[in-house]
């Protein structure tokens, strides 16, 4: 494996937590829920997944526990206030971030000095890993990477080609119309915010169990916010999220890579790149979307509180 291949393979791995979190957020947004608290949800998954993995000595259980923690946390801290009590989504999402940061730090107080001996090992896909150049980058990865891509394909199919997916999109576009069609809007909003909590939790757990192999309270370093931006960047398209996540993964890996190879650029500037890149790309993407006049897939009722009695 050449240096470039190794670097790109790390980039794919680094992008995987983003992929999970962004997929979760996108599914939530498709049913009209804007949740800006991804960072807090990812941290909850990261800390619980890490602790469970060490206690049970099982990475899979850790991953699932991270997902479960994300689900429970999101349902209690976000879904209940937003869907049941009809609070403002922006404010609640902001609070979710704060609570997630505080709670995960409290839970993980005594775990900052621990580390996993080994994370998820690479699974080589037969034949595919023989493809020149690309094979070693894409097909010699831990299984959560493949699972994430498969999930994105599944979500793309489900949203685009099934009746259920169409119903869910209808909720995001016009909850009143969806309600009139007989769709149970609050139920699906609760369900998919739970799913988004699960995926954010898994994303956080992938981060601690496959990449950092240890826990600290700043382990996500803004990945939740990058994932939030990724959804916009990918234009609410699940498949676009895959390559977008991996591209941003490459950005995240630039600083450690540059440091290891003694690049002449000071490392703070390398560390800035993911955030600058996200911002610049978001600006260009929005500008381009306005110019091209292509219809946006942004759910029209995103962030709007659904009130059944209002109709």
């Amino acid at each position, binding site marked *: 494996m050449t240096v470039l291949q190794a670097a790109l393979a790390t980039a794919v791995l680094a992008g995987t937590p983003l992929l999970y979190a962004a997929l979760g957020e996108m599914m939530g947004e498709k049913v009209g829920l804007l949740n800006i608290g991804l960072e807090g949800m990812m941290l909850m998954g990261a800390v619980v997944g890490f602790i469970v993995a060490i206690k049970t000595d099982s990475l899979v259980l850790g991953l699932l526990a991270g997902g479960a923690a994300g689900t429970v946390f999101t349902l209690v801290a976000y879904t209940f206030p937003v869907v049941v009590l009809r609070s403002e989504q922006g404010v*609640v999402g902001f609070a979710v971030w704060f609570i997630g940061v505080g709670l995960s730090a409290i839970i993980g107080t005594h775990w900052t000095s621990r580390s996993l001996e080994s994370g998820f090992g690479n699974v080589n896909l037969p034949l595919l890993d023989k493809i020149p150049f690309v094979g070693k980058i894409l097909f010699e990865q831990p299984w959560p990477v493949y699972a994430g891509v498969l999930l994105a394909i599944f979500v793309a199919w489900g949203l685009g080609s099934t009746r259920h997916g169409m119903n869910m999109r209808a909720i995001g576009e016009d909850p009143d119309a969806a309600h009139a069609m007989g769709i149970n809007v609050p139920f699906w909003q609760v369900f998919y915010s739970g799913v988004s909590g699960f995926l954010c939790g898994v994303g956080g757990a992938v981060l601690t169990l496959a990449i950092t192999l240890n826990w600290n309270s700043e382990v996500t370093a803004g990945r939740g916010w990058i994932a939030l931006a990724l959804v916009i960047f990918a234009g609410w398209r699940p498949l676009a999220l895959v390559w977008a996540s991996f591209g941003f993964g490459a950005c995240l890996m630039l600083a450690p890579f540059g440091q290891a190879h003694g690049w002449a650029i000071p490392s703070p500037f390398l560390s800035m790149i993911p955030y600058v890149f996200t911002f610049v790309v978001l600006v260009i993407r929005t500008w381009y979307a306005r110019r091209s006049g292509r219809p946006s897939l942004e759910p029209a009722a995103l962030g709007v509180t659904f009130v059944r009695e209002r109709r």
Partner: protein
Amino acid sequence: MTAGPSPIRRVIAVLAAALVAVVFISMQSSPLGGSVWEQIWLSTFGTGLGTTSVLQLAMPILFAGLAAAVCQRTGMWNIGIPGQMIMGAWTATWVAYHLSGVPQAPLVLAMMAAGVIGGGLWMLLPALARVYLGVSEIIGTLLLNFVAIQWLIYWTGGPWANTNQNGGGTLIAKPLPAQATLPQFTIGSTTIGLALLIGVALAVVLAAVYRYTQFGYRSALAESGDELVRYAGISVWRTRLVTLVLSGGIAGLGGVLLVLDQLHVLSTSLTADNSGYVGIVAAALAGNALLGVVPSALLFGFLAAIGSALQIMDVSGEIVTLLTGLVLIIACINVGKPRFLARRSSARGTSPPSAPAPEPAPTLDEVAK
């Protein structure tokens, strides 16, 4: 969020958070021995020193709260306050290094002006992206925080690094000119910094501006972003742009004053206590009333002092972050007044403005049409 949470809700939020705090702290025992409650009392209002630290911690929260409230009053978010504080402090430090021979008063004034400019300019980028293109200002402002933090690390660890001082984990820049300080007033055993008084004065001035001037009236109207407002000849995009940059300038001023008042040097501990984010919560608790931010900031200063007391006792101080989130969520959840009881018109079109605008952002193109 013009009206904001009702006064009763605010009290309930604070009391509920206090209850959680009491339960949590009672469960803790310090590995160092001694009563946690006693330490908290000594670190807050129990001693003059404690009161001083509460006031000191409240100062940056006050500026951040004013910056957030100004923004929210026009229906927008500014989550980039920590970044603007950093850039304000950085610009002021740059000015101070170049004006080292200047006497105290002009130097401090120049630094404050530089801070306002630095914070405002840092906000200009996401503000233009928001106003012209409709790029979410929530994401834009927040992402630039990470950039600003790295910028600070670069300067304090590189060109401006203080090689004589080992700050442990924090990077410290070269010392500022000795006259770059703000006066402190001592009343009994409590010290009040001029910076806090400037903050209170700023709150009063801003409240007056929003109450009595055309600009205040325009931004209150621009909050809704309604067609009607545009027909009335009010330029929504210009009001929003000015508001966002003003908000950045206030945050930048807070950053400078934190350096002048407490840190006395540019260092990476500038945003260590998350005051920039806490200020947003303080503003929300005050219902974005500009004068209300003052008591709200004091409350969160008190909370921050409790956090540092817990850290002294080697108990996790992170409970403060959790409590801050709890106060926000309890203050702002919708319990008392189900929305379907509100009038139809207000229930439908104008979802509360503090929520990220569901309607597409009015941009220059649209306004020009």
